[in-house]
C-alpha cells in the first residue's frame, strides 16, 4: 500500500478519527449530490428553459444510479476499514473516493457539453477537499491530471474527434468550437485549480505542522512529568525509608517484643513516635502535593461536607478535650452534597481544622460554620489562637510558609499544608481566603479565620485523551 502520510500522523489517533468522520461526511454529501443530479436530469427542464437529449438523459441516469450503488457500498466498506499500517486504511478510502468521483464527474462533463458544461466547476470543489486530506504530491498530480483531461476533452471536441453533447438552452451559439472561448475558459480553469489546490494544501500543511508541534510538546511534557514524578517519589522514598525503619523499631520496643522497660522510657519513646509521625506526615504531604500537581487526577463523587467535618473533628477529639477547646460546629439547614474528590477535600479540611486546633491555646474557641448557598457552600473555620501577623497574611498559601510566631508553639509542621489546601480548593473550582484577627478574637489571641467557597458542581477540565500516564509499579 502506498504511504500517504508521515509516520507521526499515522500514530495520531485524532487524525484517524477525524478522517473516519470526513469519510462519512463525504458519503452523506454524495447522497445530496445524487439528489441534485436527479433534479438536474429530470426536473431542471421544467423550471428553466434547457433541454437534454435522450442519450444525455439516459447516461446521466446511469451515472446517478451507479453513484447511488457505489455510495451504498462505501457506507458498508467504511466500517470495515481499519487503521492498520501498511494495509488499506481510511486514507486510501478517501483517495479512492476522490478518484472515482472525479472520473464520474468527467463523464458527466462530457455528457453535458465539455467546456460548455457548468459542471466542470465542481472539479475545484473536489480538489479543495482532496487538498485538505491528501499529501501535496498526490493532490497536485490529480489536479494536473484534471486540467489535462479537461483540455483533452475540449480539444477533441473542438477538432470534432470526440462527440459533443450540448445542453440546449445554456448558450445561444456553439461555444466549444470558438477557440477564444475554449482557450480563455481552460486558462482560467487551470489557474483557478492550481491556485485553489496550492492555497488549501498550504493551509492544511500548516495545520498539520501545528498539530505535530502540539503532539510533540504533549509527548515531551508527558515524558518529563513522568520522569519528575518518578524522581520525586524515588527521593522521598529514600527519605522515608530510614524514618519508617526507625518507627518500626520503636514500635517493636513499645509493643513489648524486646521485654519490659520503665514508664520513663515508654514516655520518651512515645514522644519519639509523635515526632516521627510528624515527619512522616510531612513527607506524605509533599508526596500528595506532587501527585496533585503532576497528575491533575481527581475523582468526582458526591461529598457530604458536614459528615466530612464531623469525621475530622472526631479524629481530633483527643486534642480538643485535652486543650479544653470550646467547639462550635454549625451548618445551615439546606444542606446538600457537592461533586468532588472526597480524599482530597478531607485532606484540605483536616489541614485547616487541624491548624485551628493546633494554634489555639487552652480554653480557646474553634468555630466551624457551613452555609449552603444557591450554587456553593461557604465554610468558615475560625479560631482565637495565635493568629497570623498582618505583614505575613499574603504569604500563608505559599509553599513552605510557616508564620514567624508559630515557632513558639510546641507543634512542628511542614508548611506544605496551606499550599496544598489552596491547590485542592482551586482544583475544585473553589476559593479560599484568610483574615486575622478572626471574628472571635480576644484581646490576647487574635486568631485566624479561613473562608472556603466550594461550588456544588465540579466542571471537568482535564482532557480525557491527554491524561498523563500514571507511573506503573510503585515505590
Amino acid at each position, binding site marked *: 500500500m502506498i504511504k500517504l502520510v508521515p509516520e507521526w500522523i499515522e500514530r495520531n489517533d485524532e487524525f484517524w478519527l477525524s478522517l473516519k468522520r470526513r469519510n462519512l461526511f463525504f458519503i452523506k454529501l454524495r447522497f445530496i449530490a445524487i439528489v441534485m443530479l436527479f433534479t438536474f436530469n429530470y426536473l431542471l427542464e421544467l423550471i428553466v428553459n434547457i433541454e437534454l437529449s435522450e442519450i444525455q438523459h439516459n447516461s446521466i441516469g446511469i451515472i446517478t444510479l451507479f453513484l447511488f450503488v457505489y455510495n451504498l457500498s462505501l457506507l458498508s466498506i467504511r466500517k470495515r476499514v481499519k487503521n492498520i499500517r501498511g494495509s488499506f486504511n481510511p486514507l486510501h478510502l478517501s483517495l479512492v473516493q476522490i478518484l472515482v468521483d472525479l472520473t464520474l464527474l468527467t463523464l458527466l462533463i462530457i455528457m453535458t457539453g465539455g467546456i460548455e458544461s457548468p459542471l466542470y466547476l465542481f472539479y475545484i470543489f473536489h480538489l479543495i477537499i482532496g487538498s485538505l486530506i491528501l499529501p501535496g504530491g498526490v493532490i497536485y498530480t490529480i489536479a494536473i491530471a484534471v486540467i489535462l483531461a479537461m483540455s483533452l476533452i475540449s480539444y477533441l471536441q473542438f477538432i470534432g474527434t470526440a462527440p459533443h453533447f450540448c445542453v440546449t438552452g445554456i448558450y445561444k451559439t456553439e461555444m466549444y468550437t470558438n477557440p477564444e472561448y475554449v482557450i480563455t475558459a481552460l486558462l482560467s480553469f487551470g489557474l483557478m485549480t492550481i491556485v485553489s489546490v496550492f492555497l488549501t494544501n498550504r493551509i492544511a500543511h500548516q495545520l498539520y505542522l501545528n498539530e505535530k508541534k502540539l503532539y510533540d510538546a504533549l509527548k515531551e511534557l508527558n515524558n518529563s512529568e513522568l520522569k519528575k514524578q518518578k524522581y520525586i*517519589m524515588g527521593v522521598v522514598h529514600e527519605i522515608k525509608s530510614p524514618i519508617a525503619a526507625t518507627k518500626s523499631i520503636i514500635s517493636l520496643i513499645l*509493643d513489648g517484643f524486646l521485654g519490659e522497660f520503665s514508664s520513663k522510657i515508654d514516655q520518651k519513646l512515645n514522644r519519639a513516635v509523635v515526632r516521627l509521625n510528624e515527619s512522616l506526615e510531612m513527607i506524605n504531604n509533599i508526596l500528595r502535593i506532587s501527585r496533585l500537581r503532576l497528575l491533575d487526577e481527581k475523582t468526582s463523587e458526591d461529598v457530604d461536607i458536614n459528615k466530612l467535618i464531623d469525621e475530622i473533628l472526631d479524629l481530633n477529639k483527643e486534642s480538643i478535650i485535652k486543650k479544653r477547646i470550646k467547639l462550635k460546629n454549625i451548618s445551615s439547614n439546606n444542606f446538600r452534597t457537592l461533586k468532588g474528590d472526597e480524599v482530597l477535600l478531607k485532606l484540605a479540611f483536616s489541614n485547616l481544622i487541624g491548624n485551628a486546633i493546633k494554634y489555639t491555646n487552652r480554653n480557646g474557641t474553634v468555630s466551624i460554620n457551613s452555609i449552603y448557598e444557591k450554587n456553593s457552600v461557604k465554610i468558615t473555620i475560625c479560631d482565637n489562637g495565635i493568629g497570623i501577623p498582618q505583614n505575613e497574611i499574603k504569604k500563608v498559601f505559599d509553599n513552605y510558609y510557616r508564620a514567624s510566631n508559630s515557632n513558639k508553639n510546641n507543634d512542628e509542621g511542614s508548611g506544605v499544608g496551606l499550599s496544598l489546601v489552596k491547590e485542592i480548593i482551586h482544583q475544585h473550582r473553589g476559593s479560599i481566603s484568610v483574615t486575622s484577627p478572626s471574628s472571635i478574637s480576644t484581646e490576647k489571641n487574635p486568631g485566624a479565620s479561613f473562608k472556603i467557597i466550594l461550588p456544588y458542581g465540579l466542571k471537568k477540565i482535564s482532557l480525557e485523551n491527554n491524561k498523563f500516564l500514571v507511573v506503573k509499579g510503585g515505590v
Partner: protein
Amino acid sequence: MSLVVVIDDDHDILEATELILQASNFEVITTDNPTKGYSLVKEKNPDLIILDVMMEEPDDGFFLAQKFRREGIKTPILMYTSISKTVGMEFGAGEMVPVDDFVEKPISSDELIKKVKFLIKK
C-alpha cells in the same frame, strides 16, 4: 511451624519483621539480596514470602514476584510498600502485581501478624 521468607534490603526492617513473626511462633528466614531470596524460596518452599517492593532498583519486588508466579510458585506473597498508599496508588492485589496483600511501612506489628496469619491460613 510455618516458614516465612522475608526479602528486604533494609536490615532494620528485616530484624523487626523477624522479631514480630518469631514472637507469633513463625519460623523466619531473612535476606537482603533478591537473588539469594529467590534461591531460598526455591530451596525451602516457605508458607509465605514477604517482599519489599523497592530493593536495589525500583520495582525489584514486583519483578521477583512476577518471576515466582511465572515459574508456577504459588506461595502467598505479602509486599512491603513505602509510599504507594500515600500517593493513592492502592494496587488491587493480584491485578497489576501478582501479590496477595500489601503492608505499608512503617510496619505495625498488629497489622503484619494479622495479614501473615490470614495468608498462611488461606
